[in-house]
């Protein structure tokens, strides 16, 4: 099979030019899918998820038992079930009880809940990693819990959590391909649709993979920059 595929590339100039033509013409719709859906889906879900994560993290370290329990169940349920199943529940399941949500918002809700759970663990660990003395120093100059958290603890915790959060973000870029299963015409779904018409599955999926890779590669560069900036107050 492999041999046949490669052979055709060398012996059949018509097939080669057909592949080039398909590759060229499908590049634009794929990129469009990335720009209109994949990237916004990633960004919006990440921001919402992060807000959710901070709330959940604070709830889990709070002294309020009820908050602890609610946040604990949320995190455990999301981390203990497959993302794809969560998306299916939201998009295909909820209509059964009369809750109908369009594909794109469904995806946003699903990914936000997912990021919220995973990132809350990261943020919680980061907050707990800040020495107790920092809280006490804040209290000792008269700061309240909230002031100490906002001014002293979170800025330091954010530095600690940037690397793992970046990983969450990059995973999210890739996970958005699952939105294709709930009819969001993001990049991967477009690749599937185009391939269904011309049967060049390998070419189309490789193209999609390449675009994901490029996005993630650029993100890892941005990640490095942010880490350098936040490192300015610690000795090498």
């Amino acid at each position, binding site marked *: 099979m492999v041999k046949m595929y490669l052979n055709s590339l060398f012996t059949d100039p018509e097939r080669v030019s057909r592949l080039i033509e398909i590759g060229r013409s499908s590049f634009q719709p794929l990129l469009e899918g990335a720009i209109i859906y994949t990237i916004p889906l990633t960004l919006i879900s990440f921001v919402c998820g992060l807000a959710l994560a901070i709330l959940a993290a604070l709830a889990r370290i709070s002294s309020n038992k009820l908050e602890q329990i609610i946040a604990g169940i949320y995190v455990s349920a999301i981390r203990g079930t497959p993302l794809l199943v969560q998306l299916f529940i939201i998009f295909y399941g909820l209509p059964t009880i009369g809750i109908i949500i369009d594909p794109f918002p469904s995806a946003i809700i699903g990914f936000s809940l997912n990021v919220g759970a995973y990132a809350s663990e990261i943020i919680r660990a980061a907050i707990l990693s800040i020495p107790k003395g920092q809280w006490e120093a804040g209290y*000792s100059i008269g700061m309240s819990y909230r002031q100490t958290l906002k001014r002293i603890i979170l800025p330091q915790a954010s530095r600690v959590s940037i690397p793992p959060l970046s990983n969450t973000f990059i995973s999210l870029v890739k996970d958005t391909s699952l939105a294709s299963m709930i009819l969001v015409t993001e990049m991967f779904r477009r690749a599937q649709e185009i391939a269904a018409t011309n049967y060049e599955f390998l070419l189309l999926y490789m193209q999609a993979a390449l675009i994901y890779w490029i996005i993630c590669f650029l993100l890892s560069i941005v990640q490095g920059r942010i880490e350098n900036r936040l490192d300015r*107050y610690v000795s090498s």
Partner: protein
Amino acid sequence: MIKIKDLHKQFDQLKVLKGINLYVAKGKVIVVIGPSGSGKTTLLRCLNVLEEPTSGQIVIDDQVLDFSQQVPKRKIPSFRRLTGMVFQNYNLFPHMTALENVMEGPVTVKGEKKETVRKKAEILLGKVGLGDKINYYPFQLSGGQQQRVGIARALAMEPKVMLFDEPTSALDPELVGEVLKVMKDLANEGMTMVIVTHEMRFAREAADEVIFIDGGVIVERGKPEQIFSAPKEARTQQFLSLIQ
């Protein structure tokens, strides 16, 4: 300035403070000594309410906290502002410069204007001998310099009492002097201070009164000359002979 009445502190089963009574007049410098685990740190932390006493009463300036009943949470921050705490390991905010460390309290807690606070903070840092280091981050400063920033940070809140918990014991010997000098200057200006330290020479020179704590009670108290040269209690004698 400070009145402590029958103060008890218990961690689970462990009784750490067993009825401390202490009166400190305005402008006095009290040095607290005692063996490890005797409750010195706990006493200071109770004064700053970083630790909530199990029972007893603390009066500082004109504010009273009575721990025999439930102390309302909202009373604690204003009470805490009466005291400035200097920690053994400085606990500076690592993401802020020396200046920002000192400005943080007045700006965030008191809501004062940044410009006025900045001037005040610069003067304070000048006073502790760090006028040329105001824009340094803690990691760029030596231990002695960090501790002096810590003192300036506490002073910026204009506390009535300064509490020091072994402020020099994490320092290299050659850096101890610069911190003690700042503390002496402060004493000479009339600041009321409670200091836990093992620097006996400093205690002799700067303390108005020395208090020896062991097993959660005040065993002996007196003028430094008396405590150091002629301790009355056997436990005090034993402790002093061990450290001198």
